[in-house]
């Protein structure tokens, strides 16, 4: 029963972390968002970063799964089920981050009572809900043993693909439509989000499949993994291209964009920017562009991790850079209002520029949410993946098979 012990140990650890996250979240609800590092200058932080990040991660899975049906890519069909599970879990996490970030979650019903259809956040909430529903339907049909279920999968996939693209676009528009923020206001924001979603999502799918391989819950061909890694290389290239386009557009007029760029290149968010460029785009692309590297699972895994961390860094610099400089600059700046400032005295309540660092509360909450995600993925895979279902069936009907799987 080795696997089970390992599984239980892992699940136990994850459950504890999840519980810690929940506790931190309750603490945050009691104390208010002042327990985070956010403030009036930088009014969004780690939670919204994670929201963007997980919306993106959920894409890879669904795009692979649905393109398998839409474009009849046969090999991809094999991994469609874990891909959709992954996608479902990630979109749930993304949604949770939005809710966790709300200061007045007790008034959330106002979204239904008096929605403002002009708000990109409202669009996003709608699209994410729709996306989640499609994921679940997808999952239900995929798991259905009824006849015709596969046809239904094909039909759902035709909706799923555009909705997946839309969900990332709408998330992008939360930022991309804000004229007030130099670094966000850009038409390329939606394509950039989509392609970042694809590369990070694919990378996560690759890692998950490798993990499932190792756990024995689900077997994937190395060839298919290499194939997916090839697709990842293409996505990274497109991502790099879009980032390049954006930067050129910011830099070339020598106008306001240059200042924002300077913050990215040499200022507070520079480590994140350069990490993404080097470790998130250049290194994984250089690795994966060669077929022989794509065959080496260690390198593929390394490249995938680079891509995921790189995309996370991109979310960080994309979000935070535009909070740093105030459009109307000058002393005393903006009254920061943050928790630290509320207990600060004197002129320390003001900030000349936006500044942000997550507090332990935010980090614990994020760790908790991610733990919950991993736990859910593990449980769902165990329950839903075919190999495992067989094993589970076997287990319930007697003993034996499990040992072999291990």
């Amino acid at each position, binding site marked *: 029963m080795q696997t089970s012990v390992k599984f239980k140990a892992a699940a136990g650890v994850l459950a504890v972390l999840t519980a810690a996250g929940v506790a931190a979240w309750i603490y945050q609800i009691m104390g208010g968002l002042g327990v985070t590092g956010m403030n009036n200058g930088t009014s969004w932080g780690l939670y919204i970063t994670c929201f963007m990040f997980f919306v993106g991660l959920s894409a890879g899975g669904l795009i692979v799964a649905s393109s398998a049906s839409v474009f009849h890519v046969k090999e991809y069909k094999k991994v469609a089920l874990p891909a959709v599970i992954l996608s479902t879990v990630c979109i749930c996490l993304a949604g949770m981050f939005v809710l966790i970030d709300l200061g007045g979650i007790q008034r959330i019903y106002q979204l239904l009572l008096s929605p403002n259809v002009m708000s990109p956040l409202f669009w996003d909430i709608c699209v994410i809900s729709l996306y989640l529903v499609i994921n679940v339907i997808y999952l239900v049909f995929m798991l259905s043993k009824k006849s015709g279920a596969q046809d239904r999968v094909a039909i759902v996939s035709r909706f799923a693909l555009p909705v997946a693209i839309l969900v990332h676009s709408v998330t992008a528009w939360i930022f991309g439509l804000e004229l007030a923020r130099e670094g966000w206001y850009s038409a390329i924001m939606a394509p950039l989000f989509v392609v970042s979603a694809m590369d990070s999502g694919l990378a996560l799918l690759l890692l998950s499949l490798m993990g499932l391989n190792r756990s024995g819950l689900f077997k994937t061909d190395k060839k298919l993994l290499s194939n997916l890694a090839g697709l990842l290389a293409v996505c990274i290239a497109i991502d790099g291209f879009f980032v390049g386009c954006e930067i050129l557009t910011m830099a070339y007029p020598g106008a306001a964009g240059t200042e924002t760029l300077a913050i990215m290149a040499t200022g507070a968010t520079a480590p994140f920017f350069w990490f993404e460029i080097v470790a998130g785009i250049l290194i994984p692309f250089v690795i994966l562009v060669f077929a022989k590297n794509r065959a080496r699972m260690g390198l593929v895994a390394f490249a995938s991790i680079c891509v995921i961390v790189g995309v996370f860094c991109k979310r960080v610099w994309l979000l935070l850079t535009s909070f740093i400089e105030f459009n109307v600059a000058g002393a005393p700046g903006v009254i920061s209002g943050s928790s630290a400032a509320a207990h600060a005295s004197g*002129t320390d*309540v003001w900030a000349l520029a936006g500044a942000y660092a997550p507090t332990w509360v935010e980090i614990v909450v994020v760790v908790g949410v991610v733990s919950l995600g991993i736990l859910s993925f593990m449980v769902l895979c165990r329950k839903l993946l075919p190999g495992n279902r067989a094993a589970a069936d076997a287990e319930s009907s007697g003993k034996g098979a499990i040992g072999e799987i291990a």
Partner: protein
Amino acid sequence: MSEANGSQNVLTRRSFLKASGAAVGALGLAGTAMLTADEWLAPAQAHADEQERTGYTFHYRHCQCNCHLKCTVRDGRMAFIEPNDWPDKRNETICLKGISEIQHVYSVDRLQVPLKRVGERGSGEFVEITWDEALDAVAQGIQKVWSDYGKQAIAYMPSVDTLSVNLGRILGAQEKPHRGIDIGLGNGFSPAIAESGGQGAASNEMKDWKNAKTILNVGCNVLETCMVTAPYFFEALEAGAEIITIDPNYCTTAAKSSRWIPIEPGTDAALYLGMMSLILENEWYDEAYLRENTSMPFLVDEADGSLLRDHPAESPKETGADNPFMVWDAVSDSMQPYDADGVDPKLDASIEIDGKTYSTVFRKFKKQHEAYPIEWAAEKTGVSEEVLREITEKYACNGPSILSFGFGGADKFSNADVSGHAAVVLATLVGTFGSEDGAGAGAYVNAYQKVFGAGKLPNWPLPEECKAASAPKESVDIRDDKSGIRMLYFQDGAIQQCSANMNETAKWIDTLDFVVAQEIYHTPSVDYADIVLPTCSHFELDQEIGSLRALRGHALLQQKVLDPLFESRTDFWIETEIAKRLGYGDAIPESYEELVRYQLDNAKDEAVKGITLEELIESNGVVALNDQPEIARSYVGQKYATASGKIDLYYENLVNYGQALPAWEDPCEAYAGNPLRDEYPLQFFQRRTKYHIHCNMVDSTWIQQFFKPSVEMNPVDAESRGLASGDIVEVVNDRGSFSCECVITNAIRPGTVAVVEGIWDKYLESGAIQSVTNDTAIDRGPALPKGRVIPFNDTLVEVKKA
């Protein structure tokens, strides 16, 4: 922190109402408006159903503004402050300081209970005592000093904002003896025109600026220090006046003026002297005005510098009517009394009679000015010749002109009286006084409410022996042996504000027999007191009616807003209790109301006559004084209360000091070639701000959100010392040092550093600002009308990383 030792701090801010509730009980007053600590701590709720009440009072007059305020009290707490309604709508003002009283009346630095010193003077170690103990101790201390040394051994240093009425006279003390502050320019400016306050108050009020074309504003940051005048400043600009602010630093007023001209600190007199040279050279002076209205045609004996009179004068104060001044009459070509019929005095003449040479004041003035050519002035002041020519021509030829100065700059240099004297001569040359609308000179911040729109209220009659003592003539400084001072009774941070060279001052205080502080807040000065009496802010009264002022053209009544907070008592209550203990219980009014009624009923001032307390209460505390002009001006009709009845520019009493006419004298420390600069190269300037009135409001947490104590210096000086904004720096010279954060800004003149005056020691990293300031007393101090000036800004320091 000194206050950590004060046991009064066991009372936290949150528990203060409990304490003050007890105090109210002790006084037998209705405590219904008070809350218990529990209620105080109750969470905030929507407050629509709470009880509201309105009270009216005035705020500080020290900033000259004296805003009258309408205050809303909700559940016993002052929740809203707004300008009261005035008959003259221009006076409906409030500034950030007034508004911040919402918090400041409850400041953690409020003195809550009477204290008795237990540690060294200055250590801030106190124990709580009861009011009876405190008052008995004060009375005994006073009586001991009275019997040991006499009443004049007490120095009473009330604040401008004190609401004490008779205390100084009951003590029989020297009042504000030789305090040497805000009198420097007036020493030189006021005698010429016999300006009533002697502090250089302007000849017209700032409302008249809009009628001027050229306004020279020299070293006066009026937009911060007397904020209610802002509309008049901008009205003038909008009417087309050119406001030229001359200031070493780019202060707020400089930034808002038509033009800013930087100047070397302490050289204002050189500026005026250079300008006068140009006026003489170009004959831009108003010759007829000088002949008719000034002492310029008076004859001076070249041998001894005395003014030639009809017969030898026994004192320079002998009036011209009794003993006329002599002039050279152009019609008869003979010497004549200046007031003789049909006399046409020569302005620029020198004659020889019986082997003696007599020159007109003007001739001497011209001759003296040969030493101050424009090139010289340019070098001294750092203002280019070209700019000097330009502003002089504007000032002299594009009138009406204003010459405005303040108390924050030249006033605090050893040569302040020379600057003041030069200013009054300069203004006279172009015919400023008593002439057309919009022409004027002097300290506008002072004139604003002190001279103009001020009604005189009679003193409460006290027994004969109750009168203030005058400071001994031979004393120049309260700290010298000749002052005879053995006891200090002060209010409102007087020690910190009025003392330079704090370490020396502290030594002097240590020699005193008894020191009493009567204060609202625990200012640094309090730490030097033996007994501390906590007094109320202007918002608190134990009676419905408080004190009366007649300022800004209105009678202004203080009425109750809040009951006394903590265990504080009103100034009136304290003085009553002391008077009782000194045997004058029956001699003083029973209440503020009795006093106010007396003041109104017995008013001799036409402006006040007829105003009743009932009318004041009916009008929420503000009633216009009678017959106030739209714009007030002095010297109308060329009337001067001087010895000659004209503008007496020649100061005969200063002949021996070489200052009968303004003669350049370097500042005593912060002059260009001082060898001390090798060690202490930076001139140290204490500037004022909109955030405080001297040491008042420094402890307001609302204001602290905008102001942080810092040493301001130019990038040039910072770079050479390796300093960056935010560094903790030490400001040091041989007298002492203090340290706080530094801020690097181009608004400060290279070679100088500035710090806001009045900052409490506890808000600095270490030390006290006044520990570095210059306390030198110049020789001619005793000869000046208000004594020597304390040259606070005439200070050299070095700044280094702490």
